[in-house]
Structure formats: C-alpha cells, structure tokens
C-alpha cells in the first residue's frame, strides 16, 4: 500500500491511498484503502490521514477517522492521536498497522506497530526526509 497526505498553500488538506491488496487474497476482497474513514480521511483543519497494514483490522478500527476524532473531540495532538489510534484497541484489533497524518499547522505524524514502515515527508519545500525502520 502507498499513501500520501498534503497541505497546500491555501491551507487545504488532502489524503490519498492506493494498494495492490494482500498476497493470495480472495478474488473480490476489498482493502481498507478505498474505505473513507478506514484507510483514508481528510477534514480541514484537523488532519489528513492515510493508512497501511492489515486491512481487515484497519476497517474494524476505522483507523483514519479515529485519528481525526481523537484530535477534534479529545483535543489530542496529532502525534499522540496517531499513536493512540494504532495502539488503543490492541486486544481487540490485533494486526500490523501504520499511518501518516498531517494537519493545517504543518505538523506531520507517523505511527506504526511494525518494525518497518517506508515513509517520508517534506515541509515547505525543504529537502525530504525518508526512513524505513522503526528506530530511524
């Protein structure tokens, strides 16, 4: 799965996600990626979110919207909201998950429970920063 979130100079947020699904998935199986609120969500000015991981778990966790809800209704910061969304229902939603989020204040957050998430960001046109492993 690949995903992107962006903030433009007019203060608008957007999110997009695209995926090839699971290895050996059943024909006709849909992932979380195209489900708004699960794999993809954007709502000015709170956040834009794109998710990756085990689709069935992300759908049941409504992961992208969970980040938005934690920011808007619980008043959490973007990084805290992103981390909580990935970890808060661990007992019920056990599976690999990761996400990237961005808000109108140009804050970027990454959260994942795996040892690798291919990721990167750039602020204001500055040189991009990319990382792969959890300790980077």
């Amino acid at each position, binding site marked *: 799965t690949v995903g992107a979130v962006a903030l433009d100079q007019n203060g608008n947020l957007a999110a997009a996600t695209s995926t090839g699904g699971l*290895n050996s998935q059943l024909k006709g199986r849909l992932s979380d990626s195209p489900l708004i609120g699960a794999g993809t969500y954007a709502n000015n000015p709170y956040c834009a979110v794109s998710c*990756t991981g085990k689709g069935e778990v992300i759908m049941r966790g409504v992961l992208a919207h969970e980040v938005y809800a934690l920011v808007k209704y619980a008043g959490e910061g973007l990084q805290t909201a992103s981390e909580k969304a990935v970890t808060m229902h661990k007992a019920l939603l056990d599976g690999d998950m990761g996400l990237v989020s961005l808000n109108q204040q140009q804050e970027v957050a990454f959260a994942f429970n795996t040892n690798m998430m*291919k990721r990167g960001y750039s602020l204001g046109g500055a040189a991009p920063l990319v990382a792969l492993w959890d300790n980077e």
Partner: protein
Amino acid sequence: MKKFAIAIHAGAETVKREDISKEQETQYREGLQEALAAGNAVLEKGGSALDAVVAAIEKMENNPLFNAGIGGNLNIHGETAFDAAIMDGKNLKSGSVGSIRYVKNPIKLARVVMEKCRHNFMVDTGAEEFALSQGLELKPPSHFVTEEKLKSWHQNYYDDYLKGHD
C-alpha cells in the same frame, strides 16, 4: 511565507532486517524521495493538495518496488487487483475505486470518480467502464505483474493466504 507540506508512506510490515538488502533499502529510499519530489513540485508552484497527493501516489504506483500499480500483490488466482481512494479536506468530497484490474493509475480513477461521477465508490468492471469513458490510460494485467511478485506468489502461496498483508 505560506505553509505547505507533504508526507507519504509505502507500506508498514514486520520483516527481518536481514531479509532486506542494502541495495533494496537504497531503492526504497530513492522511490520515496522521488514521490516526495513529485508532490513538492506541485505544492511549491501553489498547486492544490489534491494534485500533490495524486502526483506522489502516481510515482509510487509506477514503481515496481511498492505494493500498488506495477508490483502489486497477486490474489489467490495469481491476478492483480487494485483499490484506491482520495479525499478533499476542504469540502469532504471523496472518490474510491475497488477491484480494478486494467487502469494504469488507480489513484487517477479515484480522482475522476470524486470529481465527475455521481457516485463516490465504484468497483470492478463498472469502475473500468467509467475509466474508459473518462479517457484514462488502460494497461493489460501483465503490465502490473513483476517477476519478483510472481516468484513470491509461487513460493509463499499458502503462508500468505493464511496471514496476508495490504
């Protein structure tokens, strides 16, 4: 100075470090940088966040290293099938597509569904007919299948079926 930013991911997974070579790591990083550069090029010129995310995703869909577009995973029948979505935070408009097989860049189809379709989620052959009506580029299924994914499908069929990953 006005703020703008882009952030991307290309998949989260639990893997053994020794299974990823230094060469692969370098290729992943280069692919991520290329996608960020494409999105940044849009934003720097004052382009929209929507255009930026499409530009970044298109690069990654065209990169065989990532599980989207070329290099997508193979299903139980050894076929590729793609899902994609886009959402505009300004007006909460969205477009989604699922189980499409012939559209070169699924994210572009999600974008036209959002902007030109009276529905916001299209799947399978109906989505592909809509892509045709909008003049999007189509490709044969073989375009998306890489040698590496085919080899992996043959080797790991049953393991992947049991645990799986998007």
